[in-house]
C-alpha cells in the first residue's frame, strides 16, 4: 500500500445516520392530563370550523334521544288503554285512545329515525371534513419539513401518524363528543322520568348503569393497551414474513427454512397468546355486562310485579320501565367506547399536533427574494457544518472554494469525510452552521427556497423512483415539459435507446411496483430527471457509481455541450469521474486536505496520488490477489 497513513474511517454517512436516528422522534406514550385536555379542546375547536353542521348534529342528537325516551311511555299508555284502565268512556273511547297512541308512536318513531339519520350523517360528515383538513395540513407539513427532521423520524412512524393517529382525531367528534350528548340526554332525562314515575322502581331499573358503565370503560382501556401491544407483536410477525420473502434467496442459500419457521412460530405464538387473552378480556366483559342488565331486569320484574299486585302501579307502567331499560342498555354499554375515544383522541392528537406544530428549521427568511443568476458564481466561504445531535463532531470545517459557469469542481475523499454533505448544503437541505454559501453574491439563506432549488439540481445517490411511467419520472420536476425535452434529457443520460427498446417505451411503469431497472439505469434516469430542471448549479452526489465507465464517459460528452451555462460539482470516489475537473478538492475529516487540478495533485504526491495509484493501476499496487494464497 502506498505511503500515506490514512485512517480507515469506516464511519460512513450511513452509520452516522444511525447515531442521528438514535434520538428519535419522541413517541409520547400517554399524554399527560393537562396536555391531553388541551389537545381535546383543540380538536373541539377544529370541529367548530363547521358550526352549522355541528349545530345540526347536536340538535338532532338531542331531539332523537328525547323522542326515543317517549317510546316506552307511549307503549305503557297503550297497554293501560288496552286494559281500559285509563279510559272511562267504555269500548269505543278506549279504541279511539289506542288509535291516538298508535299514531303518535308511529310519528315519534319516524321522527326519531329521521333525526338519528341526521345525527349520524352529520356527525360523520363533520369528522370526515375535519379529517380532510388534517390530511392536507399533515401532507403539507411533511413535504416542507427539512432533511434533518426526516433523518430523525422513521418513515413508518410518519405513516402511522398520518393514517391511524389522524383517524383517532377525526373520529373524536362522532365517537366521543356526540356520545356524551346522547348518553347525557338518555341517562339524565331517562333517570328523571323513571325516578319521577316511581322512585324505588326507577332506582332499581338504573341499578345496572354504574356497573356496566364502569366495566365497559375499564375493559375498553385494557383492550386499548393490549391492542397497542398486539400491534407491536403483529408487526414483528409481519417483519419476519417480509424479510423472509424478500431475502428468500439467502434463506434457501443457507438451507435455513427450518430456522425461519422457528422464528415465524415464535412471533406467531406471542401474537396468538395475546389475541386469545384479548378475547378473554372482551368476552368476560360482554357477558358480565349482559348478565347485570338482565339481573336488574329480573329485579324490576319482581318488585314491579309486587307493586302491580298491590295496586300501586299499572302493568303499563311496569312495561314502561322494562322497555326503558332495553333502550338504555345499548348506549350504556357503549360508554366504554366513548372513554376509549377520549383516550385515543388525546394521545393521537397530541402526537399529531406535535408534528403539525413542529418548527420548520429551513424556510424562507422574511422578505426573501427570488434568486437571480447572472454570472453563475458559486462560492463557499469558510463553510462549517455539524449534524444535529452528532456529538459535536463537525462534518465540515472551513470549506472555501469558488466556481463560475462553465467550470467543474471535483470532490473526492474517503467515506465519511463529509463530501456528500457539501452536496446537501447548496440546495439548503441542511443549513450551514458557520460561514456562508453564495450564488452570484446572494447568500442562499436570503433567497426563496423555491427559486434556489430550481437553480440547484442535485443528482442523489439513492434516488427514489416514483411508481409511474418513465416519462412521468423524468418530468417529475417539470411536469409541464414537452415530450421532446424528455427524450432529449434521456438521450443525454444515455437512457433513450434502452427506453425505446422496452415494449411500452416511455410509458413503461417503473418504481417500487413497476418494471425493475438495474442500478445503473436507475441512476441514469435520475440524471435525466435532474437535467429537466436546467439548473445553474448541477451536483452529482456519487450518482454514477453504478454506471459503467464507458457509459459515464458518453454522458459526460453529451453534457459538455451545455456545461458552459452552469457550475458542475462532481462528488465521487471514482477518480475517472472527476479527474477532468477544473478544480479538485480532496476532503478528509471535513476539511479540504488537498486542492488543485488532476495534474497538480498527482505531482503533489499526497493523498490524491495515493488514491489514484490504488484505483487506476491496481495490477501494480494491489497488495493481495484472490487465490494467490
Amino acid at each position, binding site marked *: 500500500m502506498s505511503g500515506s497513513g490514512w485512517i*480507515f474511517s469506516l464511519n460512513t454517512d*450511513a452509520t452516522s445516520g*444511525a447515531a442521528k436516528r*438514535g434520538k428519535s422522534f419522541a413517541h409520547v406514550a400517554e399524554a399527560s392530563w393537562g396536555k391531553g385536555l388541551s389537545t381535546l379542546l383543540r380538536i373541539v375547536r377544529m370541529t367548530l370550523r363547521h358550526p352549522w353542521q355541528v349545530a345540526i348534529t347536536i340538535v338532532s342528537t338531542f331531539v332523537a334521544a328525547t323522542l326515543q325516551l317517549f317510546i316506552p311511555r307511549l*307503549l305503557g299508555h*297503550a297497554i293501560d288503554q288496552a*286494559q281500559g284502565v285509563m279510559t272511562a268512556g267504555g*269500548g269505543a273511547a278506549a279504541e279511539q285512545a289506542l288509535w291516538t297512541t*298508535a299514531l303518535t308512536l*308511529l*310519528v315519534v*318513531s319516524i321522527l326519531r329515525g329521521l333525526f*338519528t*339519520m341526521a345525527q349520524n350523517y352529520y356527525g360523520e360528515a363533520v369528522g*370526515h371534513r375535519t*379529517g*380532510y383538513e388534517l*390530511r392536507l395540513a399533515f*401532507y403539507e407539513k*411533511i413535504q*416542507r419539513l427539512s432533511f434533518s427532521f426526516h433523518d430523525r423520524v422513521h418513515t413508518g412512524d410518519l405513516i402511522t401518524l398520518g393514517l391511524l393517529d389522524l383517524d383517532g382525531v377525526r373520529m373524536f367528534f362522532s365517537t366521543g363528543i356526540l356520545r356524551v350528548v346522547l348518553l347525557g340526554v338518555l341517562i339524565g332525562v331517562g333517570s328523571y322520568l323513571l325516578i319521577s314515575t316511581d322512585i324505588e322502581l326507577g332506582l332499581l331499573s338504573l341499578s345496572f348503569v354504574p356497573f356496566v358503565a364502569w366495566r365497559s370503560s375499564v375493559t375498553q382501556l385494557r383492550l386499548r393497551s393490549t391492542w397497542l401491544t398486539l400491534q407491536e407483536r403483529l408487526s414483528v410477525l*409481519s417483519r419476519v*414474513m417480509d424479510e*423472509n420473502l*424478500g*431475502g428468500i434467496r*439467502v434463506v*434457501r442459500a443457507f*438451507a435455513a*427454512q427450518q*430456522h425461519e419457521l422457528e422464528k415465524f*412460530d415464535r412471533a406467531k405464538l406471542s401474537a396468538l397468546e395475546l389475541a*386469545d387473552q384479548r*378475547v*378473554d378480556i*372482551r368476552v368476560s366483559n360482554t*357477558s358480565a355486562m349482559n348478565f347485570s342488565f338482565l339481573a336488574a331486569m*329480573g329485579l324490576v*320484574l319482581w318488585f314491579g310485579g309486587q307493586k*302491580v*299486585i298491590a295496586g300501586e302501579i299499572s302493568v303499563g307502567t311496569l312495561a314502561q320501565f322494562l322497555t326503558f331499560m332495553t333502550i338504555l342498555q345499548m348506549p350504556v354499554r357503549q360508554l366504554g367506547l366513548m372513554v376509549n375515544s377520549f383516550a385515543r383522541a388525546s394521545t393521537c392528537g397530541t402526537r399529531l399536533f406535535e408534528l403539525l406544530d413542529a418548527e420548520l428549521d429551513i424556510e424562507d427568511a422574511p422578505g426573501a427574494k427570488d434568486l437571480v443568476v447572472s454570472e453563475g458564481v458559486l462560492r463557499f466561504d469558510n463553510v462549517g457544518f455539524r449534524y444535529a445531535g452528532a456529538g459535536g463532531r463537525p462534518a465540515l470545517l472551513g470549506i472555501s472554494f469558488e466556481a463560475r459557469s462553465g467550470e467543474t469542481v471535483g470532490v473526492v475523499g474517503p467515506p465519511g469525510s463529509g463530501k456528500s454533505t457539501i452536496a446537501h448544503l447548496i440546495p439548503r*437541505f441542511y443549513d450551514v452552521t458557520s460561514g456562508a454559501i453564495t450564488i452570484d453574491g446572494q447568500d442562499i439563506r436570503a433567497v426563496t427556497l423555491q427559486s434556489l432549488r430550481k437553480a440547484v439540481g442535485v443528482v442523489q445517490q439513492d434516488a427514489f423512483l416514483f*411508481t409511474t411511467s418513465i416519462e*412521468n419520472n423524468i418530468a*417529475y420536476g417539470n411536469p409541464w*415539459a414537452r415530450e421532446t425535452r424528455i427524450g432529449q434529457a434521456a438521450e443525454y443520460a444515455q437512457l433513450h435507446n434502452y427506453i425505446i*427498446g422496452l415494449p411500452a417505451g416511455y410509458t413503461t411503469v417503473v418504481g*417500487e411496483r413497476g418494471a425493475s431497472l438495474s442500478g445503473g439505469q436507475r441512476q441514469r434516469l435520475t440524471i435525466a*430527471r435532474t437535467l429537466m430542471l436546467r439548473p445553474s448549479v448541477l451536483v452529482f452526489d456519487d450518482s454514477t457509481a453504478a454506471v*459503467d465507465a*464507458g*457509459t459515464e464517459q458518453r454522458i459526460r460528452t453529451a453534457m459538455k*455541450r*451545455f456545461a458552459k451555462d452552469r457550475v458542475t460539482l462532481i462528488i465521487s470516489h471514482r477518480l475517472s469521474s472527476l479527474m477532468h475537473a477544473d478544480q479538485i478538492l480532496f476532503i478528509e475529516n471535513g476539511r479540504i486536505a488537498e486542492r488543485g487540478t488532476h495534474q497538480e495533485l498527482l505531482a503533489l504526491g499526497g493523498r490524491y496520488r495515493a488514491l489514484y495509484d490504488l*484505483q487506476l493501476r*491496481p495490477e501494480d499496487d494491489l*497488495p493481495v*490477489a*484472490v487465490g494467490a*494464497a
Partner: protein
Amino acid sequence: MSTQNDDEKEDTSGRPTKAVVGSHRDEEEVFGKAYDPRIISRIWSFVKPYQGRIFISVTAVLVFTLTQLAIPLVIRYAIDHGMAAGRPDRSVMNWAIGAFALIILINYAASYVQESVVGKVAENVLSDLRRAMFSHLQRVSLSFMDKTEVGRLMSRLQGDVNSMQEFLETSVMSVGDIVLLFGIVTVLLWLDFRLGLLTLSTMPALFIVRLFWLPRAKVAFMAAHETNSIANGALAEGIHGVRTVQSLERQHVNFDLYDEKVLANLKTHLTSAKYAQVMVPIVDTLTGIAMATVIVVGGSMVLSHSLDIGVMVAFLFYIQRFFDPIRSLTMQYSVMQRAMASGQRISEVLDVPVDVSDRRGAVKLTRDMDGSVEFRNVTFGYRQNQPVLKNVSFRVNPSETVALVGPTGSGKSSCMALVHRFYDVWSGEVRVGGHDVRDVTQDSLGDQVAMVLQEPFLFSGTVLENIRYHKTGATREEVMRAAQAVGAHDFIEHLPDGYDTELEQRGGNLSLGQRQLISFARALVADAKILVLDEATASIDSYTEMLIQKALVTLLEGRTGLVIAHRLATIRGADRIIVLQNGEIVESGNHEQLMAAKGLYARLYNMNYASFDDMSEEDTGAPAGKAT
C-alpha cells in the same frame, strides 16, 4: 439538438399533464361468488381440527338464542298469571322469577362459551392458515418467488387471512341470527296467529328494501374504500420520496394532486354515509308500523278479552328485536363474497407447486466429500424453449477458484443458482462432491455450499445474530473471529453497541460495503466446503474495496470457489476464468492465456473498465438479454 431551441417557455399555468401522485395501484377482486364449494372445502380443511370446539360454540349460540327468545315469554307469563288484576298469584310470580333467574344464568354461560370459543378458534385458524402459507412459500420454486412481488404475497398473508377471520366469526353468529329470526316468527304465530301474521307482514318489506339497497350501498362502500387506499398510497409515496420531492421542488404540484385525491375520498365517504344512514329511518318506520299495529289490533283484542295483556307486552318486546337478524344476515352476504375472493387468493398460494424437493432416499452430503463442482452438459432455462444455459460443461476442482465472466444475460447467475439447486436442470447434471445435486438432501447441500449474493441481504436483529444466521449455536468468539478474518471487526466495534447493535430493516444503517463484509463473515461462520459468490456490482469506495479483496482471500482459503466476478482484480486472481456468452462457454483459461487468445475476454479487458458490469451491447456484440 441545441440547447436553445428547447428553451421555449412551457406553459406552466394549466394542469401538469405529466404529474401524478401515488396513482399506480394493483387491482384485486374484492368480492367473489358468494359460495364456492372448492374454497369452502379448503377453508373447512383448516377449520376441521377445531370441529369439536365449533360444535360447542354452535350449540352455545343456539342455547343463547333460545334464552333470548324465552325472556319475553317469562314476562308474559308473570303478567298474565302472576299479577292478573283481581286474581294475583304470588306462587306463580315466584316461579316466574325463578325461571327468569335460571334463564339469565344459562344465558350468561352460553354467551361466554359461544363468544370466547368462536373468538379463539377464529384466531387459531387464522394463525394456522398463515403458517401453512408461509411454510409452503419456503418450499415453492424460486421461479414463482422471482415472478411474484413480496408486497403481493404479504397482502395475501395479512389482508386475505384477516378477512377469513371475519368470515369465521360472523358465520357462527349467523347461525344464531337465523335461529333468532325463525324463533321470533314461530313464537309470534304461536302466541296469536292472526296478530302474529299481521305484525310479521312488515318483515318482507325490509327484505325487499334491503335487496334494492344492498347492491347500491356496496358500490358506495367500495368507492369509499378504494379512494381511501388511493389517498393513503399517495401519502406513503409522499413520505418515502420526500427528499426527491424537495430537491425537485414538486411540493406545490403534489399538494394540489393530493388535495384532489383526498377530496375524492371525502366525497365518496359522504356518499357511503348517506347510504348507510338512509336505512335508519326505514327500519324505525317499519318498527313504528309494527308497534302501531300491535297497539291498535292487539289493544282492541285485549279490550274484547280475546287476547291476554301479557301477550301484547311480549309482542312489543319481540318487535324491538325483530329487524336485527335481518340486518346482520344481509350483511353476511357481503362478508361471504369477500371471504370467497380472499379464499381464492389464499388457495392460489397454497396450490403453487413445489418443483424442487428431496428425492426419496436422498442421501446426506457430508463434509468428507471432495468439494468439487461439476456441470455436465447442462441445459436450463426459466421459460419453455428459451434456454439460458446451453449444454454447459465445466469442472471446478477441490480448492480451486474459478471466475465466471460474461456480459449481463450470459447465464452466470443461473450457474450459481444451479449449484445450490434453486432450480432443476432441463437436461444434463450438476454434481457437487461427486453427487448429482438431485440425489442429496437440500438441507445437507445447503450446509456444504455457502453462498454470498450480490445484494447482501441482512435481517433485522443484531450484527451478531446476522453473522451467525442459522448457525445459532456459534459462540460470540467464533463470530468475532470470523469478523476479524474478513476485516469487519473494526467497523463493527465502532458501531454504537458493537456486535449487539440492532440493524435497521435490511441493514439500512450500514453502507453497502459494510453489509457485504458482514455477509462474508456470515458465510465464513457457515464454514462450508464450497463457496459460491456473486460479487457486488455497485461500485464500492476504494477503501472498503480493499478490505473486501483481502476478505475474499481469507474466505476462499481451502475452499472450492465459484465466483461471478465483476472486478478485474478478482478475475485476474482466479485460477481459471470461464467466459460465458449467451448461455455458452466461449473461452476458458487463465488471464494470460485469454489475453493471448485475443477473444471476447481480451476485448472487454482492453476497454479498460474497472468492472464488466452494465456494459452496453455494442461493447460485447451480444444482443441484450434478460437478466438472469
